């Protein structure tokens, strides 16, 4: 197996995630797209861990998973907050401040 096949998979996922966060306006969907990106990072880390023969990548990936969970929690909290005030979770509607 080539190193690059994993890395390319990761980069494709990353770019799909990037497309997602740009194209989506539903806040929950944006959060999902972010998960794509974070997963691509994890694939990278684990690929390198295997390539380098070290465990640090595993640890790193675990921390990322944990933090991502926390982020999703916070993100959904914010989404709920916004929803309660504005009755929408479209981030495009969150453009009261600009300029």
């Amino acid at each position, binding site marked *: 197996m080539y190193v690059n096949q994993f890395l390319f998979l990761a980069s494709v996922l*990353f770019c799909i*995630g990037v497309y997602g*966060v740009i194209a989506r306006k539903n*806040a929950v969907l*944006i959060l999902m797209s*972010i998960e794509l*990106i*974070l997963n*691509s*990072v994890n694939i*990278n*880390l684990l*690929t*390198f861990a295997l*390539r*380098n*023969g*070290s*465990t*640090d*990548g595993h*640890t*790193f990936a675990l*921390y*990322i998973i944990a*933090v991502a969970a*926390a*982020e999703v929690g*916070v*993100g959904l*909290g*914010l*989404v709920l*907050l*916004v929803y309660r*005030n*504005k009755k929408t979770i479209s*981030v495009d509607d*969150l*453009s*009261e*401040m*600009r*300029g």
Partner: protein
Amino acid sequence: MQHLNILAAQWVAPTIDYFGLAPELVLAGGLCIVLLVDLFIDERKKWLLSVISSFTLLAAMVPVLMLGLSETSVRSMFDGRYVVDNFSLVVKSLFLLAGYVVVLLSSSHIEQGEYWRGEYWFLLLTSLLGMLMMASSRDLVSIFVALEFLSIPAYMLAAWRKRDPKSNEAGVKYFMLGVFASAVMLYGMSLMYGVANSTLLTDIGAKVAATGEFSAVHALAVVFVIVGFAFKVSAVPFHTWAPDTYEGAPTPVTAFLSVASKAAGFVALVVLLYTAFPLAQDVWQPLIWVLSALTMTVGNVLALKQHNIVRMIAYSSISQGGFVLMPLAVAGLVGSGSTALRAVVLYMIVYAATNLGVFAIILAVSNKTRSGEISSYGGLFSYAPTLGVLMTIFLASLAGIPPLGGWIAKFVAFQSLIQSQSNWGYALALVGAVNSVIAFGYYGNVMREIWMRPVPDGDVTTISVPGSLRLALAITAGATLLFGVLPGVGLHFADLAEIAGAITR
């Protein structure tokens, strides 16, 4: 795979230098106390929490000072993943003191609104704890965790005025963009780990170079990691969240974000540049150069357009960030590394003092005018001369006019650019020079309102400034003047701040 087994077999509990961790431990203890006390005290006694918070921060200063005075100059833990060196001590005290002032700014403010006070203090202290961790972190995992540590509470604090849609919006934008940026950064970090087979910055520093077999991926990694922190320091074009978030967030939180959070970004950036990418300066120098020039310029020209004071200060602080970045654009050149570091640290110190002062004034004035418009400052000098003079001092300092603190910060930044004696350095110095003039356009505009315009609503009752704000003003104004008149003081600390293990040429 052999060594993994050996490592596993030899596992022993890591030795921890608790003295070195004392500031963090004190702060951690403090925030636990806040959280617990909040559960048990009466609504009317919630003011106690602010007292506890502020004393926690001051108490955390004690070990910082003791560490500074101790014989051991560098304390390294976890195989060098967590290092207490002079640099980290200097920036930790900066965080703690800035945090202290933010507490002072907050205490009267959050009494007024419908805030969750106990949780507010808790989150504020948590974020500060993350910053302390950031100051000492020397490996990718620690830096990542520290970054999230300081950011996640901050996301929520920005949205803390729950019923204000603007505040919600601020929180969401900050959160979203923050997550985007950290995603990019993580990708870069993963590549770094991949090529260096270590998360230790010093190991990465030995590998990541602008040339060689892996130069392309090095470049990609360096750029992505820098983007992550460029977001944090709101460098253009990663600044977009800053104006909206600053405007929408509760003002003390804005003060916190624009000073402490931004400083944390710079701390991480500096540590990375000096320990992790010293060999890749060909990659990051042009990047920082462009970021710096763009940041100064765009921040300035957009600030000129603003009529909301906080938003204007937001753009102003973007532009100030450009000045901090300025010396880093030549930091990789021979002989420039240490002066650039000095310039960055000094700029952060001075900027923190001055900008917090500005926010203190904004809080005090908005208490009366209930407005964020710059025009509401009309005639401030005539009914609140002290506030008027102090605001003038702060703005002049931001504009870099001697003998106020800002000038020495700008001066040292210019100095380090010119010391490089490179054409890029000279060019950036010119850009900076022009920008420092443009900047006066909007600072001067506020001064003009304060001194030369009539009071818009004719209400000339004096402003009663709460005691905590007075203290904050005294501290910040004193520091602003002190740094300006006796720049040696600030420079002394900035000069002390050497990063252990940094490779400078």
